[in-house]
């Protein structure tokens, strides 16, 4: 096996050095009744070329563009990844290194993550960002737990317009804690209905996603005022990080903690993971942040350098009193996001975000003109909820045969939206593709 370099002579010489007669001798500390005597029932080893064929066949059984036209977003977005990002990210000094516990020999990762934290804080309008979490959903769950720690209150109120999977993950994380989770309904505009918030005593956090699951842009400033008026923190979630190239940042609107998904920034969809959890907060809450942080410091000669810092919040120091159990996170994807943000620049991200918005508006209007009811009146970014003439699900099924995935049917998530789907358009989608969808839907 080419990954195992020892020759028979190497093994023999090493056994002699150890003073063991055989390799089996080395396992003498394992009692006989703990040993597995047989051979593992696994496929025989494949050569590299045979492996490539086998995995390649499986990859061939997936529907991807350009063979398929996909109008599917819902937390995972098709954005073009520049060749520079893939190429630079593939450098094995980044890929094959460990967590930078020895900072002197891992300044590349450390400066890269410090820059990621900085750009993320700027994107979200916050003061500090963590080095990364697993994905948007777990980042949101950790953000709400952080709000509970800060306020000392034991209840969180979540908008029903938050991605349903995110709410499920939050429920999973909260299940054993005894903390309470409540939901706010959705208005006809597609925005969160805060009218009953005041009836809920003592919430730690009001949690809103913007753009929300339906693509609608929430009024975060209003949400922050309402949250603060009942003594809660505003936790702002998101699934589409690119939106903040165009929209006001959650921080500038008054959010106390911001958490969401960064996959749109240079990370392939890869069937849903690994993605990138982004989490940012205010300086005054810094010591309550979960997860790793990189900080600036100096070396013995006074030269600038970077280290992992504030480790006293973390599990390897504080053990059960840690702010989170997270250890390995999604560092390499954070680096990808920094590379994408650096490639876009301030000018580029605004232009790209505007183009994304306008493309989705084009399809939304064209579908509306073709007789498809657009479900919500609120302004949207990249995604919108729409019905199809003759029923969504039937039409969606028919379009699959024509190699069009016309969004996500919503019935399984929102029974009241059973006749609607969530459609997404990004910059990768050309006008011709959109026109084709409209024609197919209208006929």
């Amino acid at each position, binding site marked *: 096996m080419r990954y195992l*370099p020892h020759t028979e002579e190497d093994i023999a010489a090493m056994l002699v050095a*150890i003073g063991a007669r055989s390799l089996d001798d080395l396992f*003498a500390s394992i009692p006989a009744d703990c040993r597995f005597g047989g051979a593992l029932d696994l496929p025989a080893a*494949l050569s590299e070329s045979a492996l490539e064929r086998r995995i390649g066949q499986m990859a061939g059984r997936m529907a991807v563009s350009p063979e398929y036209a996909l109008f599917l977003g819902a937390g995972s977005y098709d954005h073009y990844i520049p060749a520079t990002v893939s190429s630079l990210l593939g450098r094995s000094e980044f890929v094959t*290194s460990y967590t930078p516990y020895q900072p002197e020999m*891992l300044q590349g990762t450390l400066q890269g993550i410090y820059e990621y934290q900085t750009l993320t804080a700027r994107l979200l309008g916050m003061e500090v960002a963590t080095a990364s979490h697993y*994905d948007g959903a777990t980042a949101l769950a950790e953000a709400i737990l952080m709000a509970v720690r800060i306020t000392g209150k034991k209840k969180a109120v979540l908008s029903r317009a938050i991605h349903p999977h995110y709410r499920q993950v939050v429920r999973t994380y909260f299940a054993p804690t005894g903390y309470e989770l409540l939901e706010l309904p959705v208005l006809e505009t597609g925005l969160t209905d805060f009218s009953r918030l005041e009836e809920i005593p003592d919430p730690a956090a009001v949690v809103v996603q913007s753009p929300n699951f339906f693509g609608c842009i929430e009024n975060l400033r209003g949400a922050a005022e309402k949250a603060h008026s009942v003594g809660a923190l505003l936790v702002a979630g998101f699934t589409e990080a690119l939106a903040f190239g165009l929209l006001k940042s959650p921080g500038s609107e008054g959010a106390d903690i911001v958490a969401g998904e960064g996959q749109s920034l240079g990370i392939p969809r890869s*069937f849903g993971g690994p993605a990138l959890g982004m989490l940012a907060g205010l300086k005054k809450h810094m010591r309550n942040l979960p997860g790793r942080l990189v900080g600036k410091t100096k070396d013995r000669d006074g030269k600038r350098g970077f280290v992992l810092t504030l480790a006293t919040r973390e599990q390897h120091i504080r053990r059960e009193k840690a702010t989170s*159990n997270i250890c390995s996170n999604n560092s390499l994807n954070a680096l990808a996001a920094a590379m994408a943000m*650096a490639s876009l620049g301030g000018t580029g991200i605004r232009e790209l975000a505007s183009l994304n918005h306008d493309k989705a508006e084009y399809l939304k209007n064209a579908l509306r003109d073709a007789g498809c009811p657009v479900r919500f009146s609120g302004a949207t970014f990249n995604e919108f909820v729409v019905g199809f003439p003759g029923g969504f699900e039937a039409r969606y099924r028919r379009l699959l045969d024509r190699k069009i995935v016309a969004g996500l049917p919503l019935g399984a998530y929102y029974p009241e939206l059973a006749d609607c789907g969530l459609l997404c358009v990004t910059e990768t989608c050309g006008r011709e593709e959109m026109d084709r969808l409209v024609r197919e839907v209208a006929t």
Partner: protein
Amino acid sequence: MSEALGTTGLILNEPLLWERGKKGRSGFSIPDRDVPSRPLPLEMTGGGPDFPDLSEIEVVRHYTRLSTWNFGVDTGFYPLGSCTMKYNPKINEKLAGLRGFAAAHPLLPAELSQGALQLMFELERFLSEITGLDALTLQPAAGAQGELTGMLIIHAYHRLRGKQKTKILIPDTAHGTNPASAAICGYAPVPVPSGPDGIIAPETVEALMDSETAGIMITNPNTLGLFEANIREIARIVHERGGLVYGDGANMNAVMGIVKPGEIGVDILHLNLHKTFSTPHGGGGPGAGPVAVRKDLARFLPIPRVVEKNGAYELREDFPESIGRVLAFHGHFGILLRACAYILSMGPDGLRDASRMAVLNANYIREKLRDVLHLAFDRPCMHECVFSDQNQQPTGITTLEMAKRLIDYGYHPPTIYFPLVVHGAIMIEPTETETKEDLDAFIAAFRSVAREAADSPAVVREAPTRCKVKRLDETAAARNPCLAG
């Protein structure tokens, strides 16, 4: 070896991103606009983030230079104990980039995602065979999330039986994530002291395991690199008193094809695909932490689960006792794919041989350094060996300083000051993918450092001197945190 591995080349300085660039530059090719502009209401839009504008070449040089300040497994030997820094095969990276997988949307209908579902289904079967447990979830994103998933399953199990517990046993040789994961579930960790032989005695468990205790979290082989030989008896005691046995499988690399945890009393086990199954660590992730369980606990596994029916695969959510989702989608598929490719490349014999070579290499280093470094426990080890700086105490040189000096010799240092039960611990895990020549060179380097500790301690205290930066002030970084520029 005549010449030391560590040397210095031309290291280029590189400023921070925002210390470069000029307004109006761009490193991104924006697609043509083929739709009319439809501006959002002004009250919704902001000025856009304050990012620097860089050209493509600036971005390329920036990250290329940063990468040269980094040390990876591809650069050299990385004997970090407990982290299993084995070689990460290149073919697996190539396969993860196949468009059919890299561009696949997680919410595609099942009939359009059969390839990914098949891969997940097969990987579950492979890992089930390796662990000797019946059912799996591939969803957890990392080892610590695997632990959390396992704890949630234990919590759900006790809740369903009508008697929730308040405590959990955790040996003093456990990973730091164990107590943190248990605490999220409201279980107070009860430390279990290891015996004079470095492993847990059944009597210790017997004395601590009461009706308020949910079970035990046990790492086997443990973080001292020793096999918990009493595991069957420990499991019997825990089961008899209504608890469950959680296995931290972070060290599974030592026993693939040699021990099946499911056959020796472990009920739930997580694996670290980024350790045992060769997926890259990426400077701190992404990894993957699948969780395997015995049959009767399968109903608690996270949703969705991959199910096969007449040769077709689908994702199903109708498991009412499930703990729910732990990630937005189906796990770190890109990592799962690499691990699956690794298992297929190794085959059953290759996996067993990997474990045998990992254990051979650790024992070889243990034997070759034991006269200069103090062995924490003088007995044969599994895949890693733990020394301490006790022999160096008269010189005043500590574990940290020797670790830093190893950098100058061209090696990533071992894990230091862990496990906590060994004062000044030096935990060396060579893995199976290193050549004997490289092991010998590392041994010679460490012996040289030990000599320097006695003969020229000032040189050791000065280290490292060959990196981009000298020793960094971590205390100042924590006292006045500067986390963004």
